[in-house]
């Protein structure tokens, strides 16, 4: 495709006014491959090799956009606010010059030249930014905890271990705008006094790894990483660490031992990583999305950042919107937007004319919410109230063809596979829960199974060691809360309204 455009540009002799570049993902999964013509933000959808010539000839040479294949879904971008993903799809991620040309590394220069470390921490604290990894801990508070810790050296770990099925926000960020992550880490390093950072990335993201490696090398060449950054005394070095494919390695304490090269198992807190993290030194662990927000806040000021989202929950959040929906993709929306706006205005409603059934917010340990709760605003606290979590930002939309019992069983299965095996409730408990689901979905369920499920779920979420176990029963609890009648149908009438369960028995008949 890239070559087709390059050839076309050569053919029409417009090399000197037109540059063809490969960019990261723009977020519109349903209409790829997409081509963006700048200036003017003309986005072409489902471009074929034959279209390349036509676009160059008509649009570039004659100045007339090819309307026939222009992206025509205004709603998709209208309700979004792209801060973290500001450069996704607009710059060439393999060229540091592109990032600098759109204002990249200016925030770092501003920090080093005009701000004290404490000033940077204050700026972030005032902005009200909360951790985007899922738990929503205030970022500024975390930074000042590490900044105040006495022990040295200090470390930064950027969490890019995005293990949830159907979630690809961090990956897209790394592939489309790797320098935003690096700049965020540099700023954090300056603020807390750390000189060494690690990006923990899963090995399943080869393109993201490649892009980041290239970006780090370029930043080193330009003296943005290493000693005497921008001719100041500030030092910072960066290394990539690869995960071995464990979901639990994204947990705060598990990621530390994994970076150290040991088996990724969480440990109880306290001591918190802010005091005793990597090699028992103070460590800042932050999701890459939170870090990518930092340059914006520093550059534009905390007051500017507060103008996005809600007063008590500022900024934007990236969501991976998938499932039975017309416009799946990667979106970035302000906090406080309702689920209905996401599903219908941005997502374009349910695909194939089916009826909406439920939306799963927060990945495999999120909650399944029913139609009436579509009005719920998205922020950490409201989601928690209805039984879901922000999590890594996965939104899966389910239509009437999905069985909620089966959905809960599926996600429980995932959490069982990914449990590290350390603590009893998560390892032994979830496996027992799964057996109950197996009984219910094969027609051998009994009425008191619901009680056992409820009791076991409560136990697992209260007694587990880490976030994985504590949130793993969320799909069970929310489906029991909002779709209880489906459980009863399975148990009493031996019937699955979506026609998903009891398949094996029918085959035997």
């Amino acid at each position, binding site marked *: 495709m890239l070559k087709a455009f390059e050839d076309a540009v050569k053919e029409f002799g417009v090399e000197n006014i037109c540059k063809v570049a490969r960019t990261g993902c723009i977020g519109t999964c349903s209409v790829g491959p997409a081509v963006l013509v700048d200036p003017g933000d003309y986005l072409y959808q489902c471009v074929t090799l034959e279209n390349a010539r036509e676009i160059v000839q008509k649009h570039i040479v004659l100045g007339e956009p090819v309307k026939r294949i222009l992206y025509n879904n205004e709603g998709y971008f209208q309700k979004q606010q792209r801060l973290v993903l500001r450069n996704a799809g607009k710059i060439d991620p393999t060229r540091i010059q592109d990032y600098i040309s759109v204002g990249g590394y200016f925030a770092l220069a501003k920090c080093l030249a005009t701000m004290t470390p404490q000033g940077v921490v204050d700026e972030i604290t005032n902005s009200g930014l909360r951790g985007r990894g899922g738990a929503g801990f205030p970022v500024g508070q975390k930074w000042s905890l590490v900044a105040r810790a006495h022990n040295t050296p200090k470390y930064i770990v950027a969490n890019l271990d995005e293990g949830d099925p159907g979630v690809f926000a961090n990956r897209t960020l790394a592939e489309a705008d790797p320098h935003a992550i690096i700049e965020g880490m540099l700023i954090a390093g300056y603020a807390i006094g750390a000189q060494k950072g690690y990006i923990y990335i899963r090995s399943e993201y080869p393109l993201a790894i490649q892009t980041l490696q290239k970006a780090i090398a370029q930043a080193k060449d330009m003296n943005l990483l290493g000693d005497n950054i921008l001719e100041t005394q500030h030092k910072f070095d960066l290394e990539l660490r690869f995960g071995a494919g*464990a979901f*639990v390695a994204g947990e705060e304490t598990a990621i530390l031992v994994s970076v150290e090269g040991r*088996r990724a198992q969480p*440990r*109880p807190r*306290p001591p918190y990583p802010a005091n005793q993290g990597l090699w028992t030194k103070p460590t800042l662990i932050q999701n890459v999305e939170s870090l990518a927000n930092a340059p914006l806040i520093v550059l534009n000021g905390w007051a500017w950042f507060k103008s996005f989202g809600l007063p008590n929950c500022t900024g934007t959040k990236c969501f991976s919107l998938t499932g039975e929906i017309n416009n799946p993709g990667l979106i970035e929306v302000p906090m406080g937007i309702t689920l209905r706006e996401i599903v219908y205005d941005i997502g374009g409603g349910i695909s194939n004319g089916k009826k909406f059934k439920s939306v799963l917010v927060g990945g495999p340990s999120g909650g399944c919410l029913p139609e009436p709760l579509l009005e719920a605003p998205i922020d950490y606290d409201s989601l928690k109230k209805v039984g879901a979590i922000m999590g890594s930002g996965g939104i899966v939309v389910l239509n009437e063809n999905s069985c909620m019992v089966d959905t809960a069983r599926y996600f429980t299965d995932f959490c*069982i*596979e*990914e*449990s*590290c*095996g*350390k*603590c*009893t*409730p998560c*390892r*032994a*408990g979830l*496996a*027992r829960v799964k*057996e109950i689901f197996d009984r219910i979905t094969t027609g051998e369920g009994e009425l008191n199974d619901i009680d*056992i499920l409820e*009791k*076991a779920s409560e*136990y697992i979420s*209260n*007694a*587990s*060691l880490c976030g994985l176990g504590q949130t793993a029963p969320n799909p069970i609890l929310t489906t029991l809360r909002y779709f209880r009648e489906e459980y009863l149908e399975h148990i009493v009438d031996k019937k699955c309204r979506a026609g998903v369960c009891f398949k094996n028995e029918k085959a035997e008949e």
Partner: protein
Amino acid sequence: MTLNPMITLKIDGVQISVPEGTTILKAAKDNGILIPTLCDLEGLTPYGGCRLCLVEVTGSPKLFPACITPASPGMEVTTNSDRLKDYRRTAVQMLMAERVHICAVCVANDHCELQALANQLGVDHVALERNFTREQIDSSHDFLVIDRNRCILCTRCIRICDQIEGVHTLDLKLRSKNTEVIMDLDESWGNSCSCTSCRKCAKVCPVGAIYIEGEPITQTKNRDVAEFITARRNRK
């Protein structure tokens, strides 16, 4: 020897003074309040895996593992509320159902901490479906045997092998319910080049997962060995 300053806290309504840095578990134990544990063993680093020692702390909705949480001044700890008892019974049942725990045919019958705990907590039956796993039994060593079907993954053997004997022969492989204790790089025990055959793993195993062939279980089990050795080593 400098002693840490003393702090005062309340456990089950009893006023207790302990040196700063003491865990809740130790503070309670020193004052005659026993909190059930399975993975914890004095002399080894705490692990926090079995979740039996969870306690309530007034003012926090969370539960805290007593084996690892340090006592802090003014803390009010509850160790035996109805909820905690219920949770402990659930945990014991889940462990019993997870792998093959049939006391009548187990080598550690009557010398098993899981069994004792079940008795103590009044778990007289397992409401959950029991699993009959077919994990590997390794008897290739001259006298040490591991029956992984009885393992509750408390990692006492791994910790004592690493921290006291210092060879780290044992470790875990895989995750979730497939987690297994292995020797070296998943060698059979007889072929392990690092194992010193010191028997400490068998001594501290809370159940009958690691035992010594042909030796009476009463003679094998010596769960104070870690505490004893650590205390002797620290003696100046």
